[in-house]
């Protein structure tokens, strides 16, 4: 199918125009709106005590959730790519659930299990542990929403590289750990890296599930995304724009990381 030059340019213009209107214009406007009163005001706005504490809480939550999901993801991917067991299809399907479910439903689900009146609520209260309206709840919500990324990135890479080298290592007398560290891990490292970048982006950006379980206590359980909403709700529009721009910059850094990792990841495929 070879299109004439005129058709090709028309299609290109329509596609790029759609992208420009839908993606670039809004994001461009928010940068413009943020910096129209100068960089100093923006800096003041993102260094208030509430903003700084929201920033560090967001970092802390991601720093707990992402490593846990990475370990889970590698173990699960090994099982899905290499293992043979009953109910594998069911497990495979269950892993995608967090992608398909509304963040609000996820938040509600966690409240119903870990909240004061939830299934584990009594036991947790007796043990003096507060999960919902507290940091552990935010961590749980973040783990839930970013659970599938590493599994979904690593499983196809594992399938692609095959297990011949692992078997050779085993026949040469390597134990399970040695095989994993020296053979499997180096082969899947870029797949893991890609999954981790996606998980970090989702962990930092999660809003719906976190907003249900956090209780939104400023300085305590307010993450960066909740700060954006809170400031907008309190008619501090420029403050909301400033925090949103900070998040947008993190998103752009994520895109850059994705672009850099992608070709390396595809090398072993």
């Amino acid at each position: 199918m070879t299109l004439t030059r005129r058709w090709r340019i028309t299609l290109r213009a329509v596609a790029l125009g759609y992208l420009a209107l839908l993606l670039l214009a809004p994001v461009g406007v928010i940068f413009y709106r943020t910096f129209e009163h100068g960089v100093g005001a923006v800096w003041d706005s993102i260094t208030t005590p509430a903003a700084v504490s929201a920033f560090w809480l967001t970092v802390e939550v991601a720093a707990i959730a992402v490593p846990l999901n990475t370990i889970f993801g590698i173990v699960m991917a090994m099982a899905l790519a290499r293992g043979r067991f009953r109910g594998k299809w069911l497990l495979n399907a269950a892993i995608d659930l967090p992608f398909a479910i509304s963040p609000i439903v996820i938040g509600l689900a966690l409240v119903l299990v870990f909240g004061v009146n939830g299934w584990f609520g009594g036991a947790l209260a007796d043990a003096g542990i507060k999960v919902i309206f507290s940091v552990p709840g935010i961590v749980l919500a973040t783990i839930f929403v970013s659970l599938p990324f590493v599994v979904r990135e690593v499983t196809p890479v594992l399938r692609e590289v095959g297990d011949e080298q692992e078997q050779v290592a085993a026949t040469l007398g390597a134990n399970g750990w040695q095989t994993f560290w020296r053979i499997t891990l180096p082969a899947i490292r870029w797949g893991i890296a890609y999954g981790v970048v996606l998980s970090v982006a989702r962990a930092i950006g999660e809003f719906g599930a976190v907003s249900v379980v956090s209780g939104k206590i400023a300085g305590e359980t307010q993450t960066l995304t909740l700060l954006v909403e809170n400031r907008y709700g309190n008619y501090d529009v420029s403050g909301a724009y400033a925090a949103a721009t900070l998040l947008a910059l993190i998103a752009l850094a994520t895109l850059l990381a994705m672009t850099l990792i992608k070709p390396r990841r595809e090398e072993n495929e």
Partner: protein
Amino acid sequence: MSTTALTRRATARRPAWRSSGALGLGIATLWLSIIVLLPLAAVVARGFDGGIDTFWHAITNRQAIAALRFTVLVSLLTALVNAVAGTLIAWVLVRDRFPGKRIVNALIDLPFALPTIVAGLTLLALYGDQGVVDIHIAFTQWAVLLAFLFVTLPFVVRAVQPVLIELDREMEQAAVSLGAGNWTVFRRIVLPNLVPAILSGAALAFARAVGEFGSVVLISGNIPLKTQVSSVYIFNQIESDSEISAAAVATVLLLVSVLVLIGIRGLGRWGARHERALAEDGR
């Protein structure tokens, strides 16, 4: 031959690896159950806490049903627009050549990387009352469609792109040499090969739109019976302590998600069979 023999020997020699693998799988499954499956079961259980009548009442009250209907309709429209626009964008990214293509390709993932609340705020900054342009669609049903289109943009593009790259161009050339026009080639050869990918991308976009919250919570204006979507309705029910009614509507959304996931798995199998059939024809 030699690989099979090797496999057999290695499998026989691998009991230690096997058992640690089984332990890992057990822990990982337990982790998945506690964090994902148990809470979802709690939603369904709570939804039916007051019996089936209460459940039915909760999901058929005027506001809830209006929100559900609106959400599903706008999500279907979103899937449809994405199926067309996403295929077009994928085609331009694969078959066309222009300066800056790599940057455009990287930007496609922006909606995945950008937090949804920021997406909502940016749309509001552009189309709100104090917006930069003179289009005031904030707090209308169009605003919800726009927000859904923003957050679901990558699904169809990223589903179609790899299929289009792999697509055998010899078939197209053969068709052209037999006198087929561009439109015929697209309709009879390119499109049938892309259909499984387009459908599964559109289904993912639909699922995402049905559950979307962050990007619409500000720009929809949340007007009951008009611009209120189901996720925002559930959120309001949680805030006003109507847990059962929140859980009932959440159960419906959960069911939609599960059905879409099952549908996509079916599509995946269909796509694989389609490919196999093509490969065999080629032989």
